[in-house]
Each structure stands twice: as C-alpha cells, then as structure tokens.
C-alpha cells in the first residue's frame, strides 16, 4: 500500500476546509440528496462526500457506510485531491497503490473507486465526491461528466453559494449606502437610546469640525447648544403630530455646537428606526448659516423699503390732510374735491404698502405667530367692533353667531385681521339694509369661522381664484371699493400658517360665505391631547433644550 503524499498547499488547504466550519456538523439533506442521486445513477452501494482533514477523512454525507470517518493513511480520497481530475480505480486488486489497503482487503471491500475532487472557492481541494462498488467497474465519458457535474453541485452547497451571493449583494448595497452617506452635504449622525453617537458621516465631521472617531461613542447632546439628554430622551417619546415638543419627525431649527464651542444655526430632522430590536435614532442636520444670513438680508431690505416708502407718504398724507381739513385756510369746493381724491389715494397707497409687506412676511413664513388659546366669541366680537363704523356707513347690519365654548389656538391679532378682512369685504359687496352673519362653530377638532353676506355672490369658477393676489371678480372692483386686492390672499396665508383651511361658498346672486378653520383648543374638562404641555408658542425658543425655534427675528425694524 502506498500512502498519499501531502499536497503542496496543504496548510492553505486545511485553512480553507476549516473556514467552511463544516467538519463534524450533522448530515444535511442538501448534500444527502446528491449522494443519493449519485448512488442511484452510478448504481453503486456506496457514495460519499468525503472531506480530507489533517489526519482523517470525514464524511459530510454518505450512502452505504456506517462509519463517518476513517484514517487519512488509508484514504483513497487523499490520493484523489492531488489532481484536478477524477481519480478512477477500476479494480483496486490490480492497482499496486491500493491492492493491500485495509479498506480493500476488509470492509467495506472497495473494488471500484471514482472520486472527483471538491474545490473550495479559492481552488483548494477539500475532498471528493466519490462512488464505490464491490466489483470492478469502468466509467464512460458521459458518466465522468456526470460525476463532475454532481461534484460541482456539491462544491456549491459546501460553499453555501446562495449565502455567499447574498452576502455579496449585501456588501454591494452597504457600499452604495456608505457612498451616499459619505457624499451627502447633510450631517448624518446616528445614536442609540442611551444618547451615545453610533455613527457620523464626513459631513458631520465637517459641520461640527470634529473627527468621526471622536464623535462616535460621545454624547449626542454635546452637538446641540443648550441640549440635555434627560430632556431630549423624554421628548424623543412624544408623537410628532401631537406635541410641539416632539423631536422625531419634526423639522426644527436649533443651534449646533462645534467642537471649539462656537455655535451655528442648524436645521435638524430626527427619525427613528428599530434595528435588531433596539432603537436607532437618525439625526440629519444642515448648517443653515448662509440661508439665515440671506433671510436676514431680505428682512432688512423689506424693513428699509417699508420705512422708505412710508416716510414720504407720511409727509404727503399729512400735508394733504391738513389742507383738506381746512387747517391752512378755506378751500374752494373744487379744490376740496381734488384734495379728497389725493387723500383717498394716499390712504390706499398706505394700505397697499402694509398689505404687500404683510403678505411677503406671511408667505415666506417669516411672520411670528403668538398662538394661545382664545375664545372664538371674543375674536368675532373684536372684529365686528372694528368693522362696525364702515358697516354703519354702508347701512349693513353685522350679527354674531358663535356656538358657546368654541376655543381656538391662534394668534389673536392675525385672526382678527383675517376676520376683519372678510367682514370688510362682505360689507363692501352687501346691498344696503341687508345683514352679514359672522359665525364660529366647533366641528370635531377644529372651529369653523364663517362670514355670510347676501351680496351678488361669486361665480363658481371664481371661488378659488378670489384668494389669489390682486384678483378681482370684476376688474372695476378694486378702485370702486378702495381695496388693495391683497386682503383675501393675506387671509389665506394667515389661516394656512395656523394649519387651517380657507374657502368660499356661493351661488351667484344669493350671496357668498367665506369660511376658514382653525385648530380647536380643548375646552375645560376635556383631556388635552397627549404630549401637549400648555399653550404652544410658535416662534419662540422652546423650553430649554434643543427644539424648535420656529424662526427668529424677521419683520420690520421700527421707523
């Protein structure tokens, strides 16, 4: 008997075998079905998936043998792994390498052996798929091909090809995600429910001016000025749609803190994802220093324009008023009439300036809202009081229809401005000796305000357009009624900024009803929505912590 020499790459071969982590594992159907098929196809009593270990051959799958391993010294397969091709021993009795092998002379009486080497993905020969018979055999080319095919199948199973390809896919997708993380301009910082940073992308390093390795493991609250993890962790539990203090799912403006202690305006969105049963928070932040600066410039510009327009207008309107008022002496009737035109138009110009500045601020979202709980009846009464003198002049009656207890969360000045706009409009278009009903009614979690007139109404195709800037149903309206054409556009901006809707209902010839909704404020005895802590004040710093500074500054400086 001749023992097989060790292959040249024996160490690498053993390492590849160990890497499979398959030795001494239970039999598996995915390999057993191969040996079953081979045994049937070749019509042999014995078929093995034999792996050649350091001192033994071990059978991952076997048909026709009781033992799971034999010593390497007597192994046929140890010979087979020396070559790329199948080792075929047609008759062991006639082969000097094997004729006195104990496996030939004793059980299992190997007379015929054909073993196709099994390679690891790196090419190392791990063992064989072999078929064994008790009588001499020959294999033709087709049978050898089939043995090769079955061996290739076995190799795939051994390398767990599917898993490997899945891992490959995962690696690829991970690389893609990493490339995205590394190329976005936003800082992406993930942290766990213990407040420790888990990962940080290069943009985070740049924005916070700290290397990622110093960020990771550190406290996430150190990145936000004035933040405190105890508070943040409580606020992370709040649902975004129910609380102003919620962090997850709400875009917010905070102050970021760089490593050197300097602070900068940071726009932040935090989301949450469950990963392996624990919670992962993802903070995406953007340094908005430049945007804030350009907003400030725009604010300054608007402030200056407002001042520069109003200052000469004050002198014009003032002098005209004094002359028209007869302060400078008696006037001829024609002069008085012409001066009246000048005064009216100076007033109109003043309103136009106010409205344009107003709508610019509202539509750019830079107007500050001070939202507090307000009873609807107070808002309606205040608005009626303001418009009453004009209504009296036009001989129009104003009436209030407010359901008791209706309370909204809103900015009083802005809502009175909206209601006054709507009532003013109604008064202008209502025929004399008719009445206008101003209503407020709680429906579900909102309060619907309405202003109903019995004027000429609005054509159906104009109902949405009336809220556009400078839109007039009739081109002559603006001048005739002294409006600026911006009142309804401003009303819409105000309502939308409160999270409400505004619309008009009308049948031509039967008057019009303007409606808008505001979020209702729970009345006494009614439970407040979870997570709310008192009246929300938009536009002010949130109570110490990270949260929302909806917007700082804005608007005009004084004159």
């Amino acid at each position: 008997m001749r023992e097989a020499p060790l292959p040249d790459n024996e160490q690498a071969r053993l390492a590849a075998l160990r890497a499979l982590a398959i030795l001494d594992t239970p039999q598996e159907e995915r390999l057993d079905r191969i040996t079953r098929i081979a045994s049937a196809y070749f019509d042999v009593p014995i078929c093995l998936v034999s792996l050649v270990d350091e001192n033994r051959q071990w059978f991952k799958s076997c048909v026709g043998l009781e033992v799971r391993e034999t010593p390497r010294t007597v192994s046929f397969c140890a010979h087979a792994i020396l070559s790329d091709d199948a080792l075929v021993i047609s008759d062991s009795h006639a082969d000097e390498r094997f004729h006195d092998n104990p496996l030939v002379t004793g059980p299992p009486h190997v007379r015929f052996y054909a073993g196709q080497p099994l390679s690891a993905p790196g090419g190392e020969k791990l063992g064989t798929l072999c078929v064994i018979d008790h009588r001499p055999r020959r294999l033709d080319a087709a049978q050898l091909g089939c043995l090769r095919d079955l061996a290739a199948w076995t190799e795939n199973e051994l390398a767990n090809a599917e898993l490997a390809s899945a891992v490959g896919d995962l690696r690829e997708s991970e690389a893609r995600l990493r490339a995205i993380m590394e190329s976005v301009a936003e800082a992406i910082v993930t942290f766990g429910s213990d407040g420790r940073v888990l990962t940080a992308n290069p943009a985070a390093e740049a924005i916070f001016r700290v290397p990622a390795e110093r960020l990771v493991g550190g406290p996430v609250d150190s990145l936000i000025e004035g933040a405190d993890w105890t508070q943040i962790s409580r606020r992370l539990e709040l649902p975004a749609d129910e609380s102003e203090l919620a962090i997850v799912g709400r875009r917010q403006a905070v102050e970021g803190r760089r490593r050197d202690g300097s602070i900068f305006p940071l726009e932040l969105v935090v989301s949450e994802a469950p990963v392996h049963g624990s919670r992962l928070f993802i903070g995406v932040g953007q340094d908005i220093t430049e945007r804030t600066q350009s907003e400030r410039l725009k604010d300054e510009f608007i402030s200056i324009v407002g001042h520069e327009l109003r200052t000469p207008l004050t002198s014009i309107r003032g002098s005209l008023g004094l002359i028209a008022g007869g302060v400078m002496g008696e006037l001829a009737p024609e002069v008085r009439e012409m001066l009246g035109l000048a005064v009216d138009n100076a007033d109109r110009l003043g309103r136009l300036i106010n409205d344009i500045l107003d709508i610019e601020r509202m539509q750019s979202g830079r107007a500050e809202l001070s939202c507090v709980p307000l009873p609807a009846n107070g808002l309606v009464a205040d608005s009626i009081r303001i418009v009453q003198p004009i209504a009296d002049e036009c001989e129009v009656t104003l009436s209030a229809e407010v359901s008791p207890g209706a309370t909204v969360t809103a900015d009083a000045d802005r809502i009175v401005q909206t209601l006054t706009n709507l009532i003013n409009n109604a008064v202008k278009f209502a025929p004399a000796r008719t009445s206008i009903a101003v209503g407020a009614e709680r429906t579900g979690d909102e309060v619907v305000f309405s202003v109903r007139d019995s004027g000429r109404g609005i054509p159906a195709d104009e109902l949405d357009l009336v809220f556009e800037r400078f839109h007039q149903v009739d081109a002559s309206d603006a001048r005739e009624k002294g409006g600026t054409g911006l009142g309804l556009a401003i009303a819409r901006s105000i309502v939308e900024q409160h999270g409400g809707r505004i619309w008009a209902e009308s049948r031509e010839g039967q008057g019009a009803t303007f409606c808008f909704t505001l979020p209702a404020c729970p009345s006494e005895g009614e439970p407040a929505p979870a997570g709310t802590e008192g009246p929300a004040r938009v536009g002010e710093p949130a109570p110490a912590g990270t949260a929302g500074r909806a917007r700082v500054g804005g608007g005009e400086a004084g004159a």
Partner: protein
Amino acid sequence: MPGRLLLVDDEDDIRAVASVSLERVGGWTIVQASSGAAAIAAAQSDGPFDAVLLDFMMPELDGPATLSRLRQGPLSPDVPVVFLTAKVQASDRARLAGLGAAGVIAKPFDPMRLPDELARILAG
C-alpha cells in the same frame, strides 16, 4: 389737556406736518428736536414738557435709546412718552409699549385725527 409737547423726528417734513397738526388742530405748544441728542438737550433746557412724541427709528440714538437716556434724568418719570413708528402690527405695538412708552402712533398718520389719537393715549 394740551400743553407743551416735545416732538422728536429726524425727518424735517414729518416734523413740519405733525407740528402743524398738533398746534393748529390739537392746540399743543410744540418744541421740535431732530435727533435723540437734540431731544435730550431740549428736555434739559426747554422743559418742562407735558408729553413727548418720539420717532422710533432714527440714526445714532434711536427711539428706545433716547427714551432710556431721557428717563435717566432730563425728563421727569411722570411725563408720558408716545412712540411714532412705521411699524404697523398690533403685536409690535405691544412690544413697543413694553419699552416704557405710554403708547404708539403709526405712520402714516391722519393729521386731522393725530391730536385725538394722542389725547386718547394720554388719557390712558
């Protein structure tokens, strides 16, 4: 009841209009100042005054700064100061009033009504 009023505004034209209105319509005696510094000097040398009408936005010493200087001595604490401003929002008025002024009058103003508006604010 009209008396002596210190009118402070850096715009000559606006001072001219306002003083005609306050003198002829309102019956006030007007002393004009064209800057915060001039207002402080006037309060020291031309007082006492019964009221001050003070422009909000002026170069160098603006309205609030002038008010705080005036309150440091030149002007007796019981003399009401009313801001004149091109700011129009009611919420702005509240904030301006918080600076220690008796009230706010918006620009542009109607000169025939200015004295009444002032009287209403001074009446509290």
